[in-house]
C-alpha cells in the first residue's frame, strides 16, 4: 500500500503546473473558509462569554449607534436606587465608525473604581494603580494592543483623544478585549461642550434572583416621559442587535465560502478526470499485471485526497499564519468581534477538504476501476 502512495505522489508530479494550480485553488478556498468560520467562532464566543442573565444595557431609545446615544449621567443615581440593582456603570463610548469595520477603535470611559470593580479585567501588563492616578491613562484590551502593536508606556492618539497606555488587560468577555478604557471625565471632555455630563449607556448588574426583564421594564418606565427615554435590554440582546451587520456579513461570507468549496470540488474533480483520461492505457496495463480494482480506486482516490489535503494544509496553515501574525477583528456599533481559531475549526477545515477529495475522486476512481482491461488497453 505504501508503494501505491509513492506512486500517487509521483503521478501528481507528472503535470506539475496543473497540480500546483489545483492545490492553490484548494488552498485559497480553504483559507477563505477558515477565515469566515473563524469570524463565526469569534461571534459565538462574544455571545457565549457574556453574563447574559444578570447584565442589562441601558441605551437611548430609538438610537442604534453609540455616537448618537446621549443619556444624562444623572440617571445613574435613579437607576441605582431601583430595587434589584446591585451596581451600575455609566459608560461614555467614543468610536471611529458605527458601521461594520475591520479597524474599529472604541474608547469607553467610566468611573475608574466602578469600572475596575464591575469589569472583570485581568492585568497582563502594567498596573491598575497608574490608571487610577493619571487622568489621561488608558487600559487597553489585549486584542486591541496586539492589533495596534501597543505596549505599556506608549501613547495612542485618535482625533482629539490622546491617551497613555498604563496597562493591558484580558477579560472573560472577549468583546472587552478590543476596548480602550479611560476615565469617564477625560472622555467626556474630549467631546463637544454641550455633551458634558452625558454618557452613552449604563451597564446595570442585577442582584441574584432578580427578574431582569421586570427590572428592564422598571428602568424604561422610570424615564418613559423624560426628554431622553431609555431602551433597556439584556446584554446578549444588545450584542445581537449591535452585531446584526456582522451576522449579515458572516452569512454572506459563508455563502461565498460554500461557493468556493463547490468550485474546489469541480477543480479537483476536473484535475482527476483529466489525469485519469490520460492514463487509461496505463491503468489497463497495471490491471493486466495483477493490480485489482481496489488498487485502482486507492490510486485515484489517493490522488484526489492528496490534492485536497495538500491544499488544506497550505490553506488552513496560511489562514492560521495570517490570523496569528495579524490579529483580525471586525466591529460594528462599538462591539468588536475577533476572528478566533479553535482546534475544532482546523479539524473542520481538513474534514471539508477530505470530503471534497472523496466526492471529487470517487466517481472517476470507480469508473476507472470498472473499465474493462481490454477496453483500457485499446485492443
Amino acid at each position, binding site marked *: 500500500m505504501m*508503494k501505491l502512495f509513492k506512486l500517487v505522489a509521483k503521478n501528481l508530479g507528472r503535470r506539475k503546473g496543473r497540480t500546483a494550480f489545483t492545490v492553490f485553488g484548494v488552498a485559497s478556498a480553504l483559507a477563505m473558509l477558515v477565515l469566515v468560520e473563524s469570524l463565526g467562532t469569534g461571534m459565538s464566543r462574544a455571545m457565549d462569554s457574556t453574563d447574559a442573565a444578570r447584565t442589562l444595557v441601558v441605551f437611548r431609545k430609538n438610537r442604534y449607534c453609540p455616537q448618537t446615544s446621549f443619556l444624562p449621567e444623572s440617571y445613574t443615581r435613579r437607576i441605582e436606587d431601583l430595587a434589584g440593582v446591585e451596581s451600575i456603570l455609566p459608560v461614555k463610548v467614543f468610536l471611529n465608525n458605527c458601521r461594520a469595520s475591520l479597524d474599529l477603535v472604541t474608547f469607553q470611559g467610566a468611573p475608574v473604581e466602578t469600572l475596575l470593580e464591575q469589569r472583570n479585567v485581568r492585568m497582563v501588563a502594567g498596573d491598575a494603580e497608574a490608571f487610577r492616578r493619571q487622568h489621561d491613562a488608558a487600559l487597553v484590551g489585549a486584542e486591541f494592543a496586539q492589533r495596534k502593536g501597543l505596549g505599556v508606556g506608549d501613547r495612542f492618539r485618535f482625533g482629539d483623544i490622546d491617551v497613555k497606555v498604563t496597562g493591558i488587560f484580558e477579560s472573560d468577555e472577549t468583546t472587552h478585549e478590543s476596548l480602550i478604557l479611560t476615565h469617564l471625565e477625560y472622555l467626556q471632555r474630549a467631546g463637544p461642550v454641550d455633551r458634558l455630563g452625558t454618557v452613552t449607556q449604563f451597564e446595570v448588574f442585577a442582584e441574584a434572583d432578580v427578574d431582569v426583564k421586570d427590572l428592564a421594564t422598571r428602568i424604561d418606565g422610570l424615564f418613559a416621559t423624560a426628554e431622553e427615554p431609555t431602551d433597556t435590554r439584556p446584554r446578549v440582546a444588545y450584542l445581537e442587535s449591535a452585531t446584526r451587520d456582522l451576522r449579515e456579513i458572516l452569512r454572506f461570507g459563508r455563502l461565498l465560502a460554500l461557493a468556493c468549496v463547490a468550485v474546489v470540488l469541480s477543480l479537483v474533480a476536473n484535475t482527476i478526470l483529466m489525469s485519469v483520461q490520460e492514463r487509461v*492505457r496505463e491503468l489497463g496495463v497495471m490491471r493486466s*499485471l*495483477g493490480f485489482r480494482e481496489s488498487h485502482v480506486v486507492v490510486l485515484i482516490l489517493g490522488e484526489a485526497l492528496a490534492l485536497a489535503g495538500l491544499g488544506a494544509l497550505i490553506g488552513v496553515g496560511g489562514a492560521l499564519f495570517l490570523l496569528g501574525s495579524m490579529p483580525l477583528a471586525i466591529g460594528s456599533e462599538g462591539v468588536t468581534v475577533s476572528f478566533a481559531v479553535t482546534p475544532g475549526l482546523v479539524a473542520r477545515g481538513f474534514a471539508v477538504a477530505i470530503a471534497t477529495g472523496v466526492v471529487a475522486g470517487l466517481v472517476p476512481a470507480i469508473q476507472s476501476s470498472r473499465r*474493462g482491461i481490454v477496453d483500457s488497453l485499446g485492443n
Partner: protein
Amino acid sequence: MSFIELRGVTRRYVKGEHTVTPLEEVDLDIAEGEFLVLIGPSGSGKTTLLNLLAGIDAPQAGSVHVGGFDVGHGRSGQLARWRARTVGYVFQRANLVPVLTAYENVELPLWLQKLSRRERHDRVTLALTAVGLADRAHHLPKQLSGGQEQRVAIARAIVADPDLLVADEPTGSLDAESARGILTLLRRLNDERGKTIVMVTHDPFAAGFGKRVLHLDKGKLLAKDDASGAPRAVAR
C-alpha cells in the same frame, strides 16, 4: 491435460449495430514449456486469443484453462491474483509507467506479493540483468530507447517468475536490430528457464523464433505447414 487448454472458445464483440466474432469455436492445447507463435492478418483474433489466455478477457462460450485454473469464469479479484502469479504480459508498446524508473517499473508486479525489500531488490536486479539493462535501472522510460523500453517491459513480465509469458507483437514497433534482440531474449527465456510463451505476430521473421506456429484467420485456428508455408485447418 495440457498446460493450456481451450475448448469451444467463442468471443464476440458488439460494435454499434454489428457483431464481430474474432474467435469462433476454437480448440487449442499448449504444453508446458512450449514457445507457440500465433500468426495471421489483422483482425484475425490473435490478440483476442492472447487476452483470453492472460485472463484479461472472458469468452462468451467455451472454456479456457491455464495450469488447471478456469480462466474464463473467475471473479475479478480472483483473476487479478491469478494474473499476478501466473502471467507475464508483453505488449506491442512497452507501456511503462513514465514517472517510474526502469527499476520501479520492473518492481511493479512485486508490489502485489509479500516480499521483503531485499527479496524485491534481488528479483528486480536479476530480471534487469537477464534483459541486459542492469546499468539502466535508474533511468526513466524517456531516457531509454524503444528497444530498451521493450526489454524493461520483458523484465517486468518475468520478474514475478510467471509460468506463462504472453507477448502481443512485442517487436512491432522496433527496428530490426532491436527486434532481433527481443526475440532472442524471449527464445532464451523459453530454452533456459522453461517459460511457456505464446507470442502473436504477423512478421514471419519473428515467427521463426517460436517452436510451433499456428495460423489464425477469421477467428478460426489453422495449423501452418512449415514446408509449404500454406495453412491448413486444425482437426477438432
